[in-house]
């Protein structure tokens, strides 16, 4: 029996319990005596806290405690930032609960602990805070002007850092360049919208605490909670039970996690906090929010000479776990798949009185990919070339790999030609171009546009030495262990922390495939620091490319050990044994041999083991990758744009991705679909909007539009397979590819449709009104766009709905 689990499109074994919710969501857990926490949040962007009166709230029946920032001041410490990107980076203190000043709307200022969550919510309304308003700082360019209002008075500036990377002679590249394209693109602020809002449950147990949290990073969280609170690390156990998505938003050490732990310590009782969606929109870290100033110099034949990137990146009010580093993850990606002689990247981080930003699906790479892919289309238009042709003239050809890019990365493998050819065929590119010409000639009110995105990205975070060279606070390895239990069943422990990716299925497939045991015989354990002794957790499309590879290696070590036992039991030489289908046989002797299960029992009993071999059949391995992995692909989008209303309808979308070897094609497909939805959402729907006073106006899903399946076209997905050479599995990672690739594909399609009308950009999200205004040569809506004026739920916030 040969088991071909790797590559098999198995349905995910964890889905039934996740979809029905009959599982260990943090909020489902209810230890005896649990108290409930609710946070009062600042309704202002920036204000001094003169006084907080909690007496009325305290007097309410069933309220156990009401605490303010002042009450926590001595013990709450400062939330960590693990990525000091420059030596002179400004790093303000970030108390989990504001003590004397609030710097973004949504910052916690007080909390109620009550015997039930209804009382906790009611008591919040009894708290009276005396705020003295301070100026809101909402515009990054304004914030950098001399004499600007300051977010942190004591820093004396709103500039957090300036980080520079240069390679090649940019001046020479720009000098006398036949074609120079200058653009300013805005990556709007986005709110990561995980299906499961955040939730924390802290339980005092013995001489320590167990922290259950809807987090992507139980291992990192444990270390950070210990550092912030002073509770020794070995007295803390952190569990990420089933977690319903994160997209980077749960790659964080949140104030609420720290405060719940402090409350559990103070009260000696389990305390739980569960976030509401509106609360989350304000207080979950946000993503993107960059202003990109770009200059591309090229030859007349379309060949790129050089690229200059000048970024402003909104940090928000404070630096969180990797806030300053996120834009720098894009620094190495602005060249995309193209060759060029010179490159210069400058990023200035800016403080504003808004929710802090941090990693959001793609983290730095979507911004970079958007910029270069939009520029390639603009270059094509400038030169009158087909956008595919301009790309062909610049991309790294498949025979040129491995290729060291202008950004200093070594792309190990890729075949851009193959992915593009396949995508063009599936898309029926020529036919759609013909239809586009026809609609243009007919002056059809509905115009057709075609958008191209030939992307690559870096994932498999990350070689520890590279992270060290970038001043990041940790390494990028991952750990796995494999235990073949006495009965022959297998337990796999991974340091990677699943929150929707399907680890339990994919990891079981890898183990079953390597060990030759049935898929059903493998159990995957994760997300609990008491179970998984070490790990670097899940983000940056690293699970399979680092954690999966660690598991692959651990399986090999198990087989190696088992082989020694088998040789001993079969009285054969190890070199004469072969292992397949879960059985060791003497080469050339098809019958007999020993199964892995038999060897596991023998290793457990340990009655008769080879000299010096430790009992039990298990192994572990920590894998630190030598290089990143570089998925790539070609995405093509056809968009119909109604020139009378500005409405955009995506007609077809083809995604051909090369994510290397695939463990489970069904999971890959799911990742691509979800990724496309999120990337398309940035192009068309989502934007966190602040008013001039710094109030977030998109606090509900009526105002912050997240598309559903009904809003998306039927995706055509396919793959090419160029294995990664940097790991033995040949895998690259697929968690973010769809998001990274799709945003520019969609915007390119919209601009392509409208080019005959003189439109060369539409700001994101490309709402119908923005498209309509772009057609009229205007940029932004008139100033009457305020939330709450029209009907619908969102508008209810503007009026009295009683």
């Amino acid at each position: 029996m040969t088991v071909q689990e790797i590559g098999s499109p198995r349905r995910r074994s964890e889905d039934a319990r996740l979809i029905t919710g009959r599982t260990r969501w943090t909020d489902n857990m209810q230890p005896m005596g649990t108290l409930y926490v609710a946070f009062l949040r600042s309704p202002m962007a920036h204000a001094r806290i003169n006084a907080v009166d909690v007496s009325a709230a305290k007097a309410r029946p069933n309220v156990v405690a009401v605490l303010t920032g002042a009450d926590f001041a001595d013990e709450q410490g400062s939330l960590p930032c693990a990525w000091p990107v420059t030596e002179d980076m400004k790093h303000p203190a970030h108390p989990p609960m504001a003590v004397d000043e609030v710097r973004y709307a949504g910052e916690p200022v007080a909390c109620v602990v009550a015997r039930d969550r209804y009382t906790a919510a009611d008591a919040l309304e009894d708290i009276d805070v005396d705020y003295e308003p301070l100026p809101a700082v909402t515009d990054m360019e304004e914030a950098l002007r001399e004499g600007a209002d300051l977010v942190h008075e004591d820093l004396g500036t709103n500039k957090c850092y300036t980080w520079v990377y240069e390679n090649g002679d940019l001046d020479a590249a720009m000098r006398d360049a036949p074609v120079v394209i200058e653009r300013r693109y805005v990556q709007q602020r986005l709110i990561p919208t995980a299906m499961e809002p955040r939730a924390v449950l802290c339980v005092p147990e013995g001489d320590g605490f167990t922290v259950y949290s809807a987090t992507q990073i139980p291992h990192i969280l444990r270390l950070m909670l210990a550092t912030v609170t002073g509770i020794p690390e070995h007295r803390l156990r952190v569990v990420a039970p089933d977690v319903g998505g994160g997209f980077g938003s749960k790659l964080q050490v949140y104030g609420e996690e720290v405060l719940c732990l402090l409350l559990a310590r103070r009260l000696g009782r389990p305390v739980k906090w569960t976030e509401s969606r509106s609360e989350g929109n304000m207080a979950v870290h946000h993503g993107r929010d960059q202003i990109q100033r770009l200059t591309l110099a090229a030859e007349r034949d379309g060949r790129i000479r050089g690229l200059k990137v000048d970024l402003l990146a909104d940090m928000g009010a404070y630096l969180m776990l990797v806030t300053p580093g996120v834009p720098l993850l894009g620094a190495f990606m602005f060249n995309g798949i193209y060759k060029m002689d010179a490159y210069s990247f400058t990023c200035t981080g800016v403080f504003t009185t808004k929710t802090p930003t941090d990693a959001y699906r793609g983290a730095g790479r979507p911004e970079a990919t958007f910029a270069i892919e939009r520029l390639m289309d603009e270059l094509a238009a400038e030169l009158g070339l087909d956008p595919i042709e301009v790309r062909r003239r610049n991309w790294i050809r498949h025979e040129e790999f491995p290729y060291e890019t202008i950004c200093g990365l070594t792309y190990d493998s890729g075949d851009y030609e193959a992915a593009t050819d396949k995508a063009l065929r599936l898309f029926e590119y020529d036919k759609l171009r013909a239809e586009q010409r026809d609609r243009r000639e007919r002056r059809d009110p509905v115009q057709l546009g075609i958008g191209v995105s030939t992307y690559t990205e870096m994932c498999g975070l990350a070689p520890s030495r590279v992270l060290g060279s970038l001043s990041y606070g940790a390494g990028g390895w991952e750990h796995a262990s494999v235990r073949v239990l006495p009965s022959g069943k297998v337990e796999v422990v991974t340091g990677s922390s699943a929150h929707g990716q399907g680890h339990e299925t994919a990891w079981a497939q890898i183990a079953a495939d390597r060990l030759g045991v049935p898929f059903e015989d493998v159990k995957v354990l994760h997300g609990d620091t008491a179970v998984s002794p070490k790990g670097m957790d899940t983000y940056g499309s690293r699970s399979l490319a680092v954690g999966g590879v660690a598991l692959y290696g651990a399986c090999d070590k198990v087989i190696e050990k088992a082989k020694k036992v088998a040789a001993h039991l079969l009285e054969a030489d190890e070199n004469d044994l072969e292992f397949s289908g879960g059985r060791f046989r003497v080469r050339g002797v098809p019958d007999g041999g020993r199964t892995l299960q038999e060897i596991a029992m023998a290793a457990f009993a340990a009655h008769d083991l080879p000299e010096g071999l430790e009992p039990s059949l298990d192994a572990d391995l920590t894998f630190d990758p030598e290089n990143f992995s570089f998925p790539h692909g070609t995405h093509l989008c056809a968009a119909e744009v109604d020139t009378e209303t500005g409405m955009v309808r995506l007609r077809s979308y083809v995604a051909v991705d090369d994510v290397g070897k695939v463990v489970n094609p069904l999971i890959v497909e799911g990742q691509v679909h979800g990724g496309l939805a999120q990337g398309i959402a940035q192009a068309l729907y989502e934007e966190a909007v602040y008013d001039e006073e710094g109030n977030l106006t998109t606090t509900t899903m009526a105002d912050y539009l997240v598309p559903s399946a009904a809003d998306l076209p039927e995706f055509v997905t396919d793959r090419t397979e160029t294995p990664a050479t940097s790991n033995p599995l040949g895998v690259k990672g697929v968690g973010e590819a769809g998001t990274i690739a799709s945003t520019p594909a969609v915007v390119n399609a919209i601009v392509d449709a409208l080019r005959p009308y003189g439109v060369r950009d539409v700001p994101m999200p490309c709402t119908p009104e923005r498209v309509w205004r772009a057609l009229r040569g205007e940029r932004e809506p008139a100033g009457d766009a305020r939330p709450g004026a029209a009907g619908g739920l969102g508008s209810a916030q503007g009026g009295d709905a009683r």
Partner: protein
Amino acid sequence: MIPATFDYARPGTVEEACAALAEAGEDAKVLAGGQSLMPLLRLRLAYPDALIDLDRVAALREIRDEDGALFIGAMATHHQVMRDPLVRAHAPLIAKATATVADPAVRHRGTFGGALAHADPAGDLPAVALALDATFLAVSAERGEREIAAADFFVDWMTSALEPDEILVGVRVPKLGAGWGVHYEKFHRTAQAWAIVGVACAVRRERGAVEAARVALTNMGPTPVRAAEVEDFIAGRTVSESSFREAGERAAAGTSPPGDLHGSSEYRAHLARVLTARALTAAASA
């Protein structure tokens, strides 16, 4: 989010419901499916003292034929309304517009009367009721029954003509006779989003001309608005794209469209003109 405390009653008959509402006083709210009210409660944007839940008042779910009119019970769910053979035959505009309301889950809980009494200018059904000259039947414990014309029912932003002690029991919709074509043109950014602008339209054709048209607009002011200038202009004109376009140009006249994150008032006015022309065209060819 968690609603503030409220009293709750779940009567079984209209009489019991009226009595409960009268007793609960001015700050009570009628719960009729809860698809709009519950989010307001959970966001703590509404703080009623009491909810009178009509879910158990089976009599209010009835849809019946009353000769020249249909009577649609207030508690008929959207799902029930859009599939009802009487509605589809005699008030197809209601069936079409109802099918665009939110999503299947909401349509199974939300009710026809609840959506109308909520009087949200972004709701789809108020404009439809206005276009069809529906009559609203209200009842109170103290004063008994009364009829309210659609034109008088929508008073202001989320405010209907219902008195605090009145319950909407149903809506009488005159049947559209032969020769009428209908269309509801809804413009929204995502399938589950409210209309930025909507146009409810019924057109009666005779011998290549428009004999009469009824047009009402969603989300073009604090209440649904009848586009009277459009109706006057198009009546008697030949069925043609250009006449519909010219009629559409008059759609924003007399409206006061709001501006919000999804569209400025200028853009809404523009949309009303374009969409009205489209709705007329579609209704005339339906």
